[in-house]
């Protein structure tokens, strides 16, 4: 049953949208301040919120702290770029100051094969760590001496540095924790939740990317590659650089399964005469040759979810805690 009042309001709304001079929104960002019982939901993937630049924080005090940090940072580096009329849009970090920790446990061979060539395209000032896994002191060192840390491994890296160790850092960097449930927080009823991502935040990290539950490695890698590309960390990898699960050795069980899936899906691709994965990648590369405004990390994460084959089960797990971070 469609009511007249709703029909008419719908028409008015249609007129309104037709009147808008432009539908473009620039740099709008939303920070969700989540109640302790609401962290488990991937709010960012609600139909009308998906693709928006969204991050989350546990309190307004955390947000205030980050804005004050931005301001003090701005006033201390007031060289040329501090034109008074534009207010801050986010935290800016240099692309040159970063560290990566790739497959420190040595068993994620597919992830290593996917990410290593891409990480090699980063500036030579980057510090890359793989096996042997870093000690807690080394981890602490890596975290305090870089502005960006990319972690590709199991979990949130708690095997290498405990959350207590992270909390002790004077200034935690922006971090990508590309592992299972790395952004999951543990609820404690009426008490505040705990988790690695909250440890990074309490140590002043501007933003932390992580997953709300366990994801499988291949989709997680696809999303990482895409996110880095949108963010401006690296270029889109050339076609066929993604390994097709030929490593039969010590990989996770699920990966073998996905190998089977690739064969199964290949039939479909041959039938439809086009590789879903490589065609759009190429197109975007052409687009990126046109200089455009840089995307924030939150925009990059919003844009990478659909790169996953399972757009919700893996894609929606990816979230950003913190504020927008840009590369400069």
């Amino acid at each position: 049953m469609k009511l007249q009042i709703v029909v008419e309001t719908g028409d008015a709304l249609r007129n309104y949208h037709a009147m808008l001079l432009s539908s473009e929104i620039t740099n709008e960002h939303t920070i969700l301040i989540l109640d302790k019982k609401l962290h488990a939901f991937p709010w960012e993937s609600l139909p009308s919120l998906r693709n928006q630049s969204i991050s989350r924080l546990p309190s307004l005090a955390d947000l205030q702290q980050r804005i004050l940090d931005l301001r003090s940072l701005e006033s201390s580096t007031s060289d040329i770029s501090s034109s008074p009329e534009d207010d801050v849009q986010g935290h800016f970090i240099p692309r040159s100051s970063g560290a990566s920790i790739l497959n420190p446990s040595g068993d994620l061979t597919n992830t290593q094969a996917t990410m290593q060539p891409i990480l090699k395209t980063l500036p030579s000032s980057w510090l890359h760590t793989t096996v042997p896994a870093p000690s807690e002191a080394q981890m602490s060192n890596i975290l305090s001496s870089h502005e960006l840390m990319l972690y590709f491994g199991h979990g949130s890296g708690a095997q290498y540095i405990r959350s207590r160790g992270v909390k002790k850092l004077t200034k935690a960097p922006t971090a990508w924790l590309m592992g299972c449930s790395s952004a999951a927080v543990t609820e404690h009823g009426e008490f505040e939740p705990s988790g690695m991502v909250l440890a990074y935040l309490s140590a002043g990290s501007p933003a932390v990317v992580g997953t709300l539950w366990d994801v499988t490695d291949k989709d997680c890698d696809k999303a990482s590659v895409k996110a880095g590309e949108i963010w401006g960390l690296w270029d889109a990898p050339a076609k066929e650089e993604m390994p097709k699960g030929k490593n039969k050795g010590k990989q996770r069980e699920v990966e073998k399964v996905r190998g089977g899936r690739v064969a199964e899906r290949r039939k479909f691709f041959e039938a439809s005469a086009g590789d879903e994965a490589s065609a759009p990648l190429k197109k975007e590369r052409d687009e990126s040759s046109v200089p455009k405004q840089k995307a924030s990390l939150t925009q990059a994460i919003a844009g990478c979810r659909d790169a996953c084959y399972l757009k919700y089960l893996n894609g929606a797990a990816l979230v950003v805690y913190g504020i927008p971070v840009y590369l400069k």
Partner: protein
Amino acid sequence: VSRIENEITSKEKLLQWPVTVKASSDKPVSLTWTQFQEEYIDILPSAWTAISISLNDAEDELLLTRYRSGQSPFILRLPMARHKSRDLDEEIFDFHAGKREMLEIIELANFSAHDARHMSVKGAKTQWWAEREALDKRLAELLVNVENIWLGGFRGVFAQQRREQNALVKFQKELQKILGRHLPSRQGRSQAKPLAFDSRIIELFTGLGDPSDEELDLDEPLMDLMYFVVDILQFNGEKCAYDEIDFDSVSFSYRYCALRLS
């Protein structure tokens, strides 16, 4: 350089009662609204919106508060099962049902991501994928329910939309005309007070998106907002009997409201 490794925490230290850290200045513990507005809200960059999502103690209402620099907080209190009072046949999707479903999906997702069953068994791979794909779909459906049932017509509060004054004013006028035509309380009275809604209520409408988009079905959300608008009128002393309005329900909870704090 870290000293985490060789740090020793003495037993006495652990047993000490925590001391409240004295604030650098002698500020009062509680903030006034003005202080809160200045210190937490007005410092937000102009393009940022903070939206807090929380629950009431009974866990049956969602409290959404939207903060933007230079604006007072916009608070929405949404009973999660408000549709129930309008449609008695509907299955209840309250917070507990939603959270239970979410936690179950997470548990199953975590289990299947680490599932070490023998994939050599014929059909095991297909089975694994079928399960993962079904979970993917189940999660997408849960999110649709959260949006449609919990947020309903108020989803526009999250919209990152352009604010063009001309278009907003025109829309507000059209809305006023529509309400004037359909609300019995506004009929037959030439001197009915003009409706002046807070601009953020108008933005709840515009934030729903363009109905020309064929993928959007805005009937339900618009209906939700209509009840809300009628409620606002009720709170302002206008008598609107729901059964006289063209709504298909007479029993309706009055419980949701928008508060303006100043």
